[in-house]
């Protein structure tokens, strides 16, 4: 499980000089360096987009939410007090923005329906379209099908179940981190996670049994 409580432990990502932590970059950015913000964005862009994607199930929305999250970071960096890691802070921003987007889409009835007959949909940028030449065609088709099933099942879950499954089993956050992020007790996190797993197991019954 990842530990997000210490920003110093965040490994240097691409585009960042070796050994330069989030705290250093934040400090430099606050001192007026836009280049530091660029490095920060480069370092965290991938997981930010993925997190949003898992919450929302739509790549375009995920990119938009991730971009908006970084715009917020740029604007409100001075409010970051350092009492949690930068990643945790960014998690919360992405989570809130995703929730807003989710509600808006829910109100408009715009959730994308994934068709098992056309898993990739019309989204040409969907990574599902990227061929994996290391796998046989049969296994690739099967993998895509499973991914689509998981994505579809997640989209059918209530938002609170989806969030907690993503945070726990996809992002690998600890119970305490999740409880802080969601603002509820650890016990509640565990029980909610248990119910969420039962729900998704029902939706993925054939895959799980297999």
């Amino acid at each position: 499980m990842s530990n997000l409580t210490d920003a110093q432990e965040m490994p240097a990502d691409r585009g960042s000089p070796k050994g330069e932590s989030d705290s250093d970059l934040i400090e430099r950015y606050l001192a007026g360096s836009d280049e530091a913000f660029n490095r920060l964005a480069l370092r965290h862009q991938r997981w930010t987009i993925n997190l949003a994607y898992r919450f929302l199930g739509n790549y375009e929305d995920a990119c938009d939410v991730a971009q908006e999250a970084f715009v917020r970071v740029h604007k409100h960096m001075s409010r970051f007090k350092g009492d949690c890691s930068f990643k945790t802070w960014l998690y919360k921003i992405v989570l809130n923005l995703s929730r807003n987007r989710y509600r808006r889409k829910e109100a408009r009835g715009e959730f994308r329906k994934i068709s098992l007959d056309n898993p990739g949909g019309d989204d040409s940028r969907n990574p599902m379209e990227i061929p994996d030449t290391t796998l046989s065609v049969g296994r690739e088709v099967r993998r895509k099908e499973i991914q689509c099933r998981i994505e579809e099942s997640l989209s059918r879950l209530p938002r609170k179940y989806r969030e907690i499954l993503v945070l726990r089993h996809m992002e690998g956050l600890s119970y305490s981190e999740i409880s802080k992020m969601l603002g509820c007790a650890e016990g509640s996190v565990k029980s909610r996670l248990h119910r969420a797993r039962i729900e998704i197991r029902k939706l993925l019954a054939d895959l799980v049994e297999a």
Partner: protein
Amino acid sequence: MECKKIRPFLDDLAEGELKSPQTEIVEEHLKACPLCQRELSATRQTIRLLAEFREVDEPPDFVQQVMQRIEKRQKRSVLDRLFPRPSVARVLASVSCVAIAALGAWLVYKQFAPTPPPPRGGVAKGRGVGRSKPVRLARASRGGTELSLEESRKRGRAFSKAVGKREGLAEAEEVEKAHPVEEFGRRLGYPIAADERVETRSAGLRGAFARKTGDKKGDKSFPAGTTGAMQHGAERSNVVAGEPVALSYAFRTQQKAKKATALQPRDTILTLSAERPSKSSTALVGTVLEKAASDRPTQAATSELANVPVAQAPVETAASAGRPALAQGVSDSGEGQEKNLLARSAPDEAKRLEIDSDWYGHRHLGTLEKAPEAQDALSTALLKPPNPSQPEKKEGDFSSQEKGATGQEQMPALDANDSRQIQSLFGEALSAEHYYALAGAVPEFVFVVKDREKALAEIKKLVTALGGETESAALGDKKLTLGVGASLAEWIIVKLKTSAYEQFREKLMVRLTSRGLSASTPELRRAGRATHLSDRDEATVTFCIRLVEIREQEQTQQPPER
């Protein structure tokens, strides 16, 4: 161990977070339990599936897009900064701006809008003793348009509703403060003359509020006399064109709220009397009727009431005499009151006779509205130029003295018809001067007394002691108003120095009560304090006191010598 106890640990075991002692126990159980094994396996598979959920790649120009967005955002307008994207908030902000602008325009309009034109009925330079100001004819019209009865009722209901929504005295007072009575009148579409006594009406409205809302605390906190104030407030407002319907509707509503199964100690009888020529048919004069005495139980009064010969009301007689308006005034004093009382006191009997408890209000006003010519006839008759043959007025006869220097304000004479009507009202002994005195004076005090003559003597003594003058203006020896048995009414006109008025008011009740003459209760005393003076200037006040004595019908007295 039972599966039920093991299952809660399976999630932790599947995630590898189960601690040592429990792990062994659970694993021991799993060896022998295929169901729990399957459960654990399913949980692990679910977790694995979720963990293997694919990752997506970021767009190659993601950071550039972020920076472009930031730059774009910084260039946006103030409104856009406030509301980052087209949103409900943005729409609401726009709507709010428009609404605020509209409100501002309305307030400016309200501030500078011209006041409503005076009623078409106009101001008649009427006069009567005790009234030097112009008397407005009570015609329900506004801006040249006759106000229909239905429209009046509608407005009355609106007013009543507005009153009904208020809760409690505090709010009533707040409303009163924020919206003076003129404001109410304006909002209701009824202009109220500025020269009316605002304080009286205000007290009346407050009282109406308190009573309407059933706020007993509020009611009690009007020691100035809720009842009297309310009634006189209504009456006062009635003076001005059109206004009465709204107020009387509110008043009637609260009256109806009382369950009129029997006469109550503070039962109120509304009488439309002939006190003022120009409003004889519309003025509501409140008379607080107390139980006359302990030996006159309510039940007896009610049973007497059932025998009231309403069919013999003088309205037909008067109408046949060609004076419908005055006839209406006559019926106000007698029949209307009786019917009203009957309707409230003996509802079954009233129903049989098709009498509605709001008879005194709308039906009556409706009659007037439908016959404005009748009112004109009345006004004309009462505002005739003075009769040259009229004898010189006696010095000190303040009830008929001139109020101004012009001949127009001389006392007009009464013609034969008028005299007949007056006589039918007040008896043969009533002179024209007395009639005008009464017509110009709304009773300042109304007392229900046990012995009218003794009470009158006490009042005279008190007035004399205070340096004032009295004149017993009228005596009714017939079933004049109350309809409960026979009632005898004494009208006393009092002229006092202004400085002595307060003293008189304080001593009057004490004197009557201490001599066992008054059947009034403290409520009546309170009512007395809130009534208005008939006329006053810097030096003197002139007002009318009405003494009512109720007797058994068979004991009706002959008129005393005058």
